[in-house]
């Protein structure tokens, strides 16, 4: 795709899209949205980048390998927080009862483990979207190679 307009517009809006995605992820515990919505926005931004420039440029920014590693990382962060609560002596995914500092409701740094978990989910969703995109695209390429 060699369209100058698309590339230019992409270049302009990409930071805003990503920033917005990050905002949604980080404010998951305060407002509607959260890990999934924000992660989807971030993932979409990366897909947009790869579409507007080309695949290799996209891969340079975030390769398939890294994205699938991040995918594992996000999920592990979630599970890790759950087990962390067990180590603190409460049930799985325990939050306030586990003694994780809650902070003042309404502040950015509040709700204890939820924020970290949301962040993990965001990473997971964003990287999953990218991985899905790469997988489908590469599968297509692969088939053309064979034919």
């Amino acid at each position, binding site marked *: 795709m060699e369209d100058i307009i698309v590339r230019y517009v992409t270049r302009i809006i990409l930071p805003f899209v990503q920033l917005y995605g990050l905002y949604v992820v980080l404010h998951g515990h*305060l*407002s*509607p949205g959260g890990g*999934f919505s924000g992660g989807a926005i971030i993932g979409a931004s990366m897909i947009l980048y790869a579409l507007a420039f080309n695949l290799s440029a996209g891969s340079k920014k975030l390769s398939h390998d890294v994205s699938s590693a991040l995918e594992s990382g996000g999920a592990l962060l979630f599970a890790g927080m759950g087990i962390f609560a067990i180590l603190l002596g409460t049930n799985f995914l325990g939050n306030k009862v586990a003694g994780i500092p809650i902070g003042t*409701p*309404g502040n950015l740094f509040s709700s204890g483990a939820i924020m970290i978990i949301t962040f993990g989910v965001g990473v997971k*969703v964003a990287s999953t979207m990218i991985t*899905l995109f790469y*997988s*489908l695209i590469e*599968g*297509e390429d*692969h*088939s053309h190679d*064979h034919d």
Partner: protein
Amino acid sequence: MTMIDILLRLHQNSYYFFAIILFIIGFHTMLSHNNLIKKVIGMNIMDTSIFLFFVAIGYVNGGRAPILEPGVPYTAYVNPLPSALILTGIVVAVSVTAYALSLIVKLYKHYGTIDAEEIMRIRGGDIQ
């Protein structure tokens, strides 16, 4: 029961009605189309109908988004639980869709077509 009554009840429960219509459209698309992509689209329509239904049952007339803000007085909130659940449902639907699409890519690679009947024909030829 008069016609009016029926219409009135339909209006009151319109979300049932439309969800079912969507569900049937999706189901029909899934069953009647040979194109595998269309089958996946039908599947998504079907899922969407259920999501809409689920979200609709959580809606409270005149309710607000359920965000607790200090200082704002209590009003009726929309039930957030169905929406939260449906988010999960959407995630599931997305992954199923992605997976189905990738399978279609593979099928295309093997058979050179995405038409279910064509694939059956090719397979049938294999067996004989």
